[in-house]
């Protein structure tokens, strides 16, 4: 109880409350505008949060992260264009339901499912935190190294059909993280005698380039689009009642979201895929899927909204980000010298609990906000895309330039922007670059510190958790090779892994 009160006290400040409102409402609006998304917004706002208290900065970013998917459902349902990438599956059933004359019902169900997923995930996080507080201290250097390695392996293998390109880009991220002055022996690596490369390539510059500037370039080069969704009528609270009729699908989907969110490198898409497949296979009317089935819409929205809270688990407990957005948040922790990991749970559990409560509150704020302002948000969906590109470019400048007032950083970010545009055009994944950069750095430090006590390779996995993670890595690779081999055999050796 003392812990809970102490956490509440951390949140009961005007700046934290303002951050909570700005983050959650801003996140919904950002999510509702196709072509922006939480990653772009977080990348832009990241440097601005460095001057804030950690709890304030993280509350803004968590607010955006946790609420953007709510907003993303609006254009997905009304104009068949997902606001954020993870709302793509919502278009399958949400848009047909809207086209059949039920846009209010579709939106209401999406909001309710998202709310359920978000709250389910926060409750799971709170229940798990006691367990995490016990387990996390058993993670030494080698366990964290292996967990980071598992994250890299999973982020590569999770991109089915793109394993080679994902592997290539993850390794590119690992390489980028090594450029500059090496921290132990103080030798230069891949600086080509250029002083501007000596301090390394900043993660935020890469993130801003790959996510924000690339998106701006893409919107500016492509032709203008001006979507025109109609007004939504009808009560938006009815979905909560309808959701009660689909308790099983909602609970299983939220569980998939929590489970997949906790595993580094897997994320929303796998959770949605599993949830949607489960909902379809267990439905009495599987043929309705893709034509406006409420279970399909619930599976998609519940699973994706259960991810943000769950994705905080590896970040807070082990200091390992599972995807790009938590990788960005990691830099906020580092800037304020708050090191996520086992020690955070041991020494600052009230801070962790305050983040959980913030996540819980943001779901309530967002639901209330959406019920009253959906039609207002629809006006923002109509922003012409090239105009939006200009806006992102101007905001991107704030993000990059305010870091160090460096023209070099801006040039590098512009370069990564063009690189990101190429990746997006080719539908190649951007996330492995960021995770490679972050997890590569963690692996380098942890391998060094763990090898001091390792005499033979087997010593590396002589502790139960290390052995378990190593077994998991072998198992995941084994399963992937087996399924790839089976698929290739079935398809007559024509497709890649």
């Amino acid at each position: 109880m003392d812990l809970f009160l102490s956490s509440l006290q951390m949140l009961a400040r005007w700046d934290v409350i303002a951050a909570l409102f700005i983050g959650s409402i801003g996140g919904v609006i950002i999510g509702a505008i196709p072509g922006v998304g939480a990653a772009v917004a977080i990348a832009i706002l990241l440097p601005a949060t460095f001057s804030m208290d950690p709890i304030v900065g993280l509350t803004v970013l968590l607010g955006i992260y946790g609420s953007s998917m709510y907003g993303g459902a609006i254009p997905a349902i009304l104009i068949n264009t997902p606001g954020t990438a993870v709302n793509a599956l919502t278009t399958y059933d949400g848009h047909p339901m809207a086209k059949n004359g039920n846009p209010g019902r579709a939106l209401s169900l999406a909001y309710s499912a998202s709310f359920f997923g978000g709250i389910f995930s926060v409750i799971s996080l709170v229940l798990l935190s006691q367990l995490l507080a016990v387990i996390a201290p058993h993670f030494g250097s080698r366990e964290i190294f292996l967990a980071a390695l598992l994250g890299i392996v999973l982020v590569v293998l999770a991109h089915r059909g793109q394993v080679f390109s994902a592997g290539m880009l993850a390794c590119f991220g690992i390489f980028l993280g090594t450029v500059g002055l090496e921290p132990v022996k103080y030798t230069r690596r891949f600086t080509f005698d250029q002083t501007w490369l000596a301090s390394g390539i900043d993660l935020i510059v890469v993130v801003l380039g790959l996510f924000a500037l690339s998106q701006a370039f893409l919107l500016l080069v492509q032709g203008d689009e001006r979507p025109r969704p109609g007004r939504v009528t009808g009560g938006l609270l009815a979905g909560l009642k309808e959701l009660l009729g689909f308790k099983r699908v909602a609970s299983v989907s939220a569980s998939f979201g929590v489970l997949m969110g906790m595993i580094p490198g897997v994320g929303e898409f796998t959770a949605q895929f599993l949830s949607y497949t489960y909902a379809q296979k267990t439905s009495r009317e599987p043929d309705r899927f893709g034509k406006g089935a409420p279970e399909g819409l619930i599976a998609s929205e519940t699973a994706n909204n259960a991810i943000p809270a769950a994705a905080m688990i590896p970040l807070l407990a082990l200091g390992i980000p599972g995807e790009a957005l938590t990788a960005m948040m990691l830099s906020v922790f580092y800037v304020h010298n708050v090191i996520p990991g086992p020690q955070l749970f041991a020494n600052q559990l009230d801070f962790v609990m305050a983040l959980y409560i913030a996540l819980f509150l943001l779901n309530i704020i967002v639901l209330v906000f959406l019920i009253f302002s959906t039609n207002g948000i629809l006006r923002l969906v109509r922003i012409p895309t090239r105009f939006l590109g200009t806006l992102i470019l101007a905001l991107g400048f704030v993000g990059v330039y305010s870091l160090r007032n460096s023209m070099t950083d801006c040039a590098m970010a512009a370069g990564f922007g063009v690189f990101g545009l190429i990746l997006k055009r080719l539908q190649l994944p951007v996330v492995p670059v960021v995770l490679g950069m972050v997890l590569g750095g963690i692996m380098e430090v942890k391998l060094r510190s763990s090898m001091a006590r390792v005499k033979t390779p087997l010593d590396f996995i002589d502790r139960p958790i290390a052995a378990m993670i190593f077994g998991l890595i072998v198992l995941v690779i084994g399963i992937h090779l087996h399924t790839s081999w089976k698929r290739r055999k079935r398809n007559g050796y024509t497709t890649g892994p």
Partner: protein
Amino acid sequence: MSGPGPNRKTSGPGRRPGDVVFAAFFLVVSLLLLSQLGNETKWVQGTRGFAQPAFWPAVGLVGMSLFACLHFLGTVLPSGGKGHVRETVFWFRSLEYAIWFMAYVWIVPLIGYLPATLFFVVCLALRNGYRDPPMLLKAAGMGVVIVVVFKGLLSVKIPGGQLYEHLPDGMRNFMLLYL
């Protein structure tokens, strides 16, 4: 972000135009960087292999080269699609906006954040074909809001312009601090 799921296209045969160009470029860059491993990293005597400064760049570059090679083979072996040139031209068209961005970065320290932002957003709006006054006003308004929110309210680190030095005292301080 892309990720696994029923909505995502996979990169099997029938790839996107430009894939082979990118794969070839990435492979060449990976191999060139790998060839520089000896020159661009140091070998420290008396240090175990995994703790050598070259170890992690080597992991990254060997992985990059290996996967880039496999990815390249994957793009070349199946009959490639058409439109590689058109797609490559599309990529190069984005360079125009990278130049716009760098021009914006360049003029901020000269004329100040607010004038540079206004100039940038209005010019870019004109470049994108928005000619009607309401749209240009919206662009200018958007520029003012960005400056006021980020520099005025959030106090992000953006230096004042050289042009501000020529303003009267009171106004100069205000502009340097908030705009």
